[in-house]
């Protein structure tokens, strides 16, 4: 593996609420995150709403400051970078949003928005810009005639391609894609996912792919990080995590997703209750309040990520040392049986 491009060390982010004089403790959105992404790597970040996925994306881009730990990009600490340095780094990393309807300025033509990055950083003399915009539009599979039109003239999938062209204009090496396909129609999702895979291939982009769609993560990503309430529950290579989830939350998340495959449908853990409020997380393991396997020790001890098998697969569960896969499978069968009975 080559040297990492982006690294996060003990990264944390707290959002405080309250007024001018009275500050309330606030929400710990991200806790102690360690992550490194190598050039050409696609890392999937999965979790439910409120798990801190989007916050992590914005922290890695330096769009919001970290309240603990640090983010390094290409060896430079983002928080310590001078403003000139930061401008240079800004060019190298970009963001693609979930909603292609709100991420494009409705009042300016697509071509001008794509050119923004080039103009801001003075990358090209102005007469070469139209040709570059044409090339970018082609790269994302759109016709160059699109440049003169306004965002509302495009469909969702086409808008997402425009947003991607805009992000690629500054020739970034790192892309954060925040739920880039979840607002799109199913038939279009696959096209856009394929485009991401192609871009990684042709441009060597490193991508942080934030999603709640496990199917998309499975097909696109090399590694996956599973979040719950701002903490990493499990991480590792996609094949390992998906075929042998070691953390009960990962297993529940995977079994909860509706499936077209009839055989899989019988194995289901329906988690009871809702995720706890991030304002007041449970003590010890934050998942214990919904975990079918929780024991007394889970309430006192915050579990650390520990290796499971080989190949960088790690999970944060104190019962991970036990024969995990059998345990989860057994439990799935037991629950399925109980569900069928009731």
């Amino acid at each position, binding site marked *: 593996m080559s040297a990492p491009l982006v690294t996060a060390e003990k990264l944390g982010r707290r959002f405080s609420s309250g007024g001018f004089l009275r500050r309330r403790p606030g929400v710990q959105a991200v806790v102690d995150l360690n992550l490194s992404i190598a050039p050409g790597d696609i890392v999937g970040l999965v979790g439910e709403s409120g798990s801190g996925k989007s916050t992590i994306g914005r922290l890695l881009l330096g769009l919001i400051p970290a309240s603990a730990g640090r983010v390094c990009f290409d060896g430079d600490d983002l928080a310590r970078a001078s403003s000139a340095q930061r401008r240079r780094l800004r060019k190298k990393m970009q963001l693609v949003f979930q909603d292609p309807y709100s991420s494009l300025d409705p*009042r300016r033509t697509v071509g001008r928005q794509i050119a923004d990055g080039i103009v801001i950083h003075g990358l090209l003399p102005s007469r070469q810009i139209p040709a570059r915009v044409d090339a970018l539009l082609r790269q994302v599979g759109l016709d160059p005639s699109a440049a003169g039109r306004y965002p509302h003239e495009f469909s969702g999938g086409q808008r997402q391609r425009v947003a991607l062209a805009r992000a690629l204009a500054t020739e970034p090496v790192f892309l954060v894609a925040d739920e880039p396909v979840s607002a799109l129609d199913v038939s*279009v*999702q696959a096209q856009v996912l394929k485009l991401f895979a192609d871009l990684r291939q042709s441009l060597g982009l490193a991508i942080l792919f934030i999603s709640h769609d496990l199917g998309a993560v*499975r*097909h696109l990503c090399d590694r996956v990080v599973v979040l719950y309430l701002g903490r990493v529950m499990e991480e590792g290579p996609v094949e390992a995590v998906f075929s042998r989830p070691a953390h009960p939350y990962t297993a529940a998340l995977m079994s909860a997703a509706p499936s*077209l495959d009839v055989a899989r449908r019988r194995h289901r853990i329906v988690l009871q209750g809702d995720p706890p409020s991030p304002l007041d997380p449970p003590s010890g393991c934050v998942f214990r309040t919904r975990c079918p396997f929780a024991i007394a020790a889970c309430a006192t001890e915050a579990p650390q990520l520990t290796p499971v098998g080989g190949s960088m697969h790690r999970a944060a569960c104190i019962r991970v040392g036990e024969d995990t896969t059998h345990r989860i499978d057994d439990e799935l069968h037991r629950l399925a049986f109980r569900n069928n009975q009731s």
Partner: protein
Amino acid sequence: MRRFPWVSASAVAFLVILALLAPYLALPDPTRMDLAGRFAAPHASHLLGQDEYGRDVLSRLVWGARVSLSVSLGAALLAAVVGVTLGVIGGYLRGGAEFVTLRLTDILLCFPPMLLALLIVTLFGPGARTLIPVLAIVYAPSFARVAYAGALTIRSLDYVTAIEALGAGRPRIMARTILPNIAGPVLVQFSLAVAASMVLEAGLSFLGLGVTPPAPSWGLMIGAARATMSQAPQLLLWPCAALTAAILSINALCDGLRDYVDPQPAARRPTRLADRTAPGLAAPPSRDTVLSLRGLSVAIDTPRGAIQPVRDVSFDIKAGETLALVGESGSGKSLTGLALMGLLPPAARVEAGRAWLDGIEVLDSAPDIVRGLRGDRVAMIFQDPMSSLNPVHRVGDQIAEVILAHRDVGAADARSRAVALLRQVGVPDPPRRAAAYPHEMSGGMCQRVMIGMAVANGPRLLIADEPTTALDVTVQAQVLTLMSDLKRETGVALLFITHNLPVVAEIADRVVVLYAGQVVEQGDAAETFAHPRHPYTKALLGSAPREEGPPPEGIPGSVPSPGELPSGCCFAPRCAMRLAACERPPPLVEIGGGRTSRCIRWSEM
């Protein structure tokens, strides 16, 4: 439609040019008195007559326009520049700038504008020169407020974050991204400010604190004419008419400009036509059929003509059955559900079709009959539970309300029934939760409350429009389980509208696949998913990511918009199996086993 507002623009231009050219027009001196010609009626040398000092009214009107227009336009412009700058800086940068902007405007807004203007004029002395800054101070706070509110909304939108991520500086973002997007409300505010300062100028001049006599101004003219109203009422008419015309044309121009600078075409006011064509004779529905829909077409009037987002859709749902209406965005699935509830948006209308709910016609009935059925025999669940519940009422009361609307029971009975319903839909601790407000509950809990509300009166049909799309996967699994339990227990028929095929596979008995407003395939869910008989269904199934196997294929191209439908098969342009014969519209054909397909090559699949 984006059309430059020529009419109002030329009216304003006419006024401005007239005012600018006043010195060069062959008009009598507006201040030259002619006591002999007091109150003279209009004649050749004085087209609008003469005033109480014998001065020419037309000339005074034109010269007065110079003063009125320059004061009001100048003041509004100055107020706009100052106010918008403060507002955008405050709204975008927040922090100290926000504090300064807000408190400054708050202080100014504490004073009634007239009093504030009077105060400043008294300090600096009257005259047209002082009026412009005075009026600008009076109107700047409202610009600041409008710009501040706009900037605050827009700064949190993704496209602002996107341009920040591109590395744009703050001044650039404020000038190039925020400003154009708040142009609409600012223009409206501008027209209001022009009108208001024109009136205020007239008022101040009338009080002797604005333009000083004998210089002409519309306000002075009105003031002077008031004194002689009984002798010469026409003198009051001319300046008032000029004032009205100027204000109206400036307002019209600003409104027109607002639409013109907005690149998105505005939706035209809907017209409601009562032309519902007879759908032909349909067989009366059988006894256990809860809903029978025949030939539903929905039309929407757009500036480019009527479009049909739903065309000739028919299906039946039996008691205790779940029918999934599947399609992508723009397939017409939600409109179909809304049409059945009689809840189509104002722009849309049912153009053709009949629907029987328990034998009662719902599409062609009087609105109050349909209203009586809603919440009683048919109920609906929406996608976003948080915005579908009323935030200011307790959830228990909201459920009780639905029961009281249709059942003759006491309030206490309704409330205890509401608690029982909450228990039935799996809300923990129902008596306490009944007293909670929606914002105190999670999305999953709110959706349970919505479902409880929907089944409160024991409906025969439940229409669920993407009920789990806004929920997390683990919560979605809970809600799907709840809905199938309810169906089994109560025998309610379920119309489940969704784009999510795996969810359909989990919950549906039968499936209707919509594409571009038409049914393309219909049949038993398991059968259809195992052996699709339409290329679109097949491609859609191939687009959903699977646990195993290769990455999904996707379908090239995108759904045609209802305004630009292909002449033949709507799916043909994206279809791998298309033939020359697909240029003609294919019929929906029975293919056996209770299934139908709208593909001429269904048997080859």
